[in-house]
């Protein structure tokens, strides 16, 4: 079982390649097309990394978290959410690339396998850029937003952040 888990990546590639081959796809062409999409993804999020990383670094270095921390820490403690993830939670519904950058910064500084790093990864992986999704769907459908989607989506996001923090603390705390 341990060996299988360690071989997860090549196993997944092999399984996906077999499935694609059975559907008559050209595996090499598909994989290079996929890799090209990966490059394009990086190209589209790199500007956000370049804007958000310095912003977070500045915020951290300015001592503001310590100043605000005195006020906000009890609230975060009470909710059981690591206070370091505050900015990530704020950015998540607003911008996908900014949230990705904020989560990367947290994982880089605290380590991807730390509790904070894992919490950031779970928060990022189980939510979406709600404001963007709402805008796209309502404008594409050509109807006016009836004002229910946003509160519902934000309610889902808040639940996501709290659950992420609690589940991670339970599993890896």
């Amino acid at each position, binding site marked *: 079982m341990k060996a299988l*888990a360690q071989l*997860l990546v090549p196993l997944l590639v092999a399984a996906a390649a077999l499935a*694609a*081959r059975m559907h008559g*796809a050209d595996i090499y062409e598909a994989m*290079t097309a*996929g*890799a*090209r*999409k*990966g490059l394009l993804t*990086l190209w589209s999020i790199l500007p956000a990394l*370049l804007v958000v*990383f*310095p*912003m*977070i*670094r*500045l915020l*951290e*270095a*300015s*001592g*503001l978290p310590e100043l605000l921390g005195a006020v906000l820490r009890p609230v975060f403690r009470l909710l059981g959410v690591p206070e370091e993830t505050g900015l990530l939670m704020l*950015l998540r519904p607003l*911008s996908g690339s*900014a949230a990705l950058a904020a*989560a*990367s*910064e947290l*994982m*880089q500084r605290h*380590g*991807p*396998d730390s509790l904070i*790093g894992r919490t950031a*990864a*779970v*928060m*990022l992986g*189980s*939510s*979406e850029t*709600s404001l963007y999704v709402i805008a*796209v*769907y*309502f404008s*594409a*459908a*050509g109807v006016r937003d009836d004002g*229910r*989607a946003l509160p519902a*989506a934000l*309610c*889902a*996001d808040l*639940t996501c952040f709290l*659950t*992420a923090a609690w*589940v991670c603390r339970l599993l890896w705390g």
Partner: protein
Amino acid sequence: MNLAIITIYLLSILSALLTGKTTAAGNAVMEGVQEALLFAPRLCAALCLWSAVTELLERGGAADVLARLLRRPLSLLFPKGAGDGETLSALTENAGANLLGLGNAATPAGIRAAKGLVRIRAGAELNTLVVLNTASIQLLPTTAASLRASLGSVSPFDITPAVWLTSVFSLLAGLMAIRLLNGSRT
């Protein structure tokens, strides 16, 4: 986002002056840019690998299989939308692509589903569709795992069960909120 950037910069400057951390804060901006650049190639490796795998899964018809499995649960969520064959197939295609993390395939299908819901006058179910898409339920959290892998995680995918649990709770909360809001205004 505009407001967030201005607020963060101004608050940081003010706070650096208050705490006397002006040197560190002054250097932090340039350091941040350099770190972003150093991080990019490592992230690129993981992103390209997972994009190649999801491309294979997509061509292997994994999204179609999932779409078929999702017909029944989605009919329960969209009682009116499921009555229209075209809309139902767009809904299942959207949910199947979301599960595989295929954002590029999920959005066009979702938009077709949204238009279908409006056409058959099931506008209330449009909110359900939006919540379903903002909750982001994925079988494999490839982006979050790619980030972890590029930063040297021992097993990047070990967050998967936590991501499932969290997405399910958040989806349930969103659906309940829609229910409550619909109830209070109709």
